[in-house]
């Protein structure tokens, strides 16, 4: 090759390389607003220069390097997963809280107050037909309120179960999409910035639902794992999750007729314990922990059922220990409430007033000795403000016990709302940190990190002092 044509070939090669640089730059500008897009850089490689060997030097286009940093991408995904869990917690706990009205104007507290008042009125007039009828009516209202609370909680549970199925379906759709994108990468799209953006954006969407970790393989395909353990996407294969409701067997259930638990399976393996966060993790928590604490499960009766059973048993035992009239022989009282005695997790939902009981069968007389003609009615009226363990449930009155159930949901919701605000800020922070660390030189970064470490230590010390001061302030204000 003559010197002139060699020089022209070298110049043409360089022009081609710079053309590629312009192409990559243009691509960056075009995709400035594309979700998940990260700027790319076209590297240039020097060609060997050795005239004797015919190597004329110049440059050629090398690899296209993405500014995206896998570490900061994973940090954004982790923050998004925590936010997904926080959002779902707030949504689900708000539904649960709506079941517990503590104003005393409706629901179970209202019905209990009315029944206690009717017991008091009956104690004033133990043989009064109107007062006896009122006790029956208010007892029916209490049974209905227990049933209604159980039904409303069961409806919340049904809603959560529908959401669980929908969330699993969405996760499966997203992992199938990722497997499809991997196929396109394998078909030659390794340096396709648009494909890379789609993968990143899909992974970010997926991370709202489950905790995923993703890593790039040498062929450019993304491997996606659930909680760092269970494969969701390997190459061009997506591993589907399935959701099921079943009675747990290990350990053996204490309440075999209790409501089933939700579990998540991957390839027939139970991976429920790996789904601890994201919106799927939060839904599982509400389904398997929060609602069973009221309605029961294979391992507990549930607070609402325990309360219903103890209340019904106490009223029934008190009435049956009394007499309707003190004749010879005296006529004993009858039980008022009925419920499903075969299933401890179905007490609240099945509670009712025995329809065969008539007002004149209510036993007001305490046989003593000495007999008191309104002793039983007084004992039941005392349920409003019990003075001893008699008529209490776990050392508090029935109304207070219901209040405790309501306040525990309230406290959990309040903590979830605080956490939601923190997680929103944490996602913003992770996105900002991703921006800061993309394409930064290692040398520069090492220097900045030393500054960061000092600043964190100073701030952390101040936060600890502030924490103590705030607690002191609240305690001081509470004491007044």
């Amino acid at each position: 090759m003559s010197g002139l044509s060699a020089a022209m070939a070298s110049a043409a090669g360089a022009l081609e390389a710079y053309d590629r640089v312009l192409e990559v730059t243009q691509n960056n500008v075009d995709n400035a607003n594309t979700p998940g897009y990260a700027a790319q850089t076209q590297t240039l490689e020097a060609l060997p220069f050795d005239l004797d060997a015919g190597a004329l030097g110049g440059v050629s286009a090398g690899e296209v390097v993405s500014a995206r940093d896998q570490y900061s991408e994973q940090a954004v995904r982790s923050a998004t997963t925590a936010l997904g869990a926080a959002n779902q917690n707030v949504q689900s706990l708000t539904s649960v809280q709506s079941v517990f009205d503590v104003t005393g104007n409706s629901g179970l507290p209202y019905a209990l107050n009315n029944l206690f008042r009717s017991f008091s009125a009956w104690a004033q007039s133990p043989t009064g037909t109107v007062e006896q009828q009122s006790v029956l009516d208010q007892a029916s209202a209490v049974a209905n309120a227990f049933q209604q609370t159980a039904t409303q909680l069961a409806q919340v549970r049904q809603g959560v179960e529908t959401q669980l199925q929908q969330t699993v379906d969405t996760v499966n759709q997203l992992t199938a999409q990722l497997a499809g994108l991997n196929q396109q990468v394998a078909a030659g799209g390794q340096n396709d910035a648009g494909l890379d953006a789609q993968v990143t954006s899909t992974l970010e969407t997926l991370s709202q639902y489950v905790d995923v970790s993703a890593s790039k393989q040498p062929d450019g395909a993304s491997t996606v794992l659930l909680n760092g353990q269970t494969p969701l996407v390997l190459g061009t294969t997506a591993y589907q999750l399935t959701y099921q409701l079943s009675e747990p067997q290990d350990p053996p259930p204490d309440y075999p007729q209790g409501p089933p638990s939700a579990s998540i399976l991957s390839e027939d393996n139970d991976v429920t314990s790996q789904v601890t966060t994201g919106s799927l993790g939060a839904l599982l928590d509400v389904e398997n922990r929060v609602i069973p604490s009221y309605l029961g499960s294979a391992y507990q009766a549930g607070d609402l059922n325990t309360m219903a059973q103890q209340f019904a048993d106490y009223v029934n035992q008190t009435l049956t220990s009394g007499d309707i009239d003190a004749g010879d022989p005296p006529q004993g009282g009858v039980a008022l409430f009925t419920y499903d005695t075969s299933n401890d997790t179905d007490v609240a939902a099945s509670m009712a007033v025995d329809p065969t009981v008539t007002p004149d069968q209510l036993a007001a007389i305490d046989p003593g000795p000495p007999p008191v003609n309104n002793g039983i009615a007084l004992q039941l009226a005392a349920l409003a403000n019990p003075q001893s363990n008699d008529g209490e449930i776990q050392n508090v009155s029935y109304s207070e016990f219901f209040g405790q159930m309501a306040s525990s949901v309230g406290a959990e919701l309040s903590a979830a709302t605080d956490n939601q605000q923190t997680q929103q800020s944490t996602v913003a922070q992770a996105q900002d940190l991703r921006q800061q660390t993309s394409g930064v030189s290692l040398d520069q970064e090492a220097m900045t990190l030393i500054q960061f470490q000092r600043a964190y230590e100073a701030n952390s010390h101040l936060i600890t002092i502030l924490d103590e001061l705030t607690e002191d302030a609240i305690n001081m204000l509470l004491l007044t």
Partner: protein
Amino acid sequence: MNTEDNLKTIETACSEVRQASRLLCSPSPAQLDRCAVLLQAAVTRLEEWRKLPHAHRGAARALPEARRLRAAVRRTRGLLESAAGYHAAWRRLIDAMSAGYAPGGAPAAVVRPARLCLRG
């Protein structure tokens, strides 16, 4: 100090902590320095308030604000911990990228000689 002053003290401390938490959404060394100044101001304010003989006046109005302050402190702590965690792990990663791994599998120690930086 009257009731209004008490309330104002807690409100101001709360506002300072919230500002610090907003700065932590974009943590850079400069932002963290500003954050420390705000937190220090809140600490000084609350320490002085605590020493006052009538600090508890107007508890009914001040208590909700104190609880908001506690929530803001917790949020700030959460953000500080997540940012610190991010940089700690990033630093380990950079160390591993710079110096490789020690025989035990941990990132090898990076020798960081002192530097002199001249700016004209």
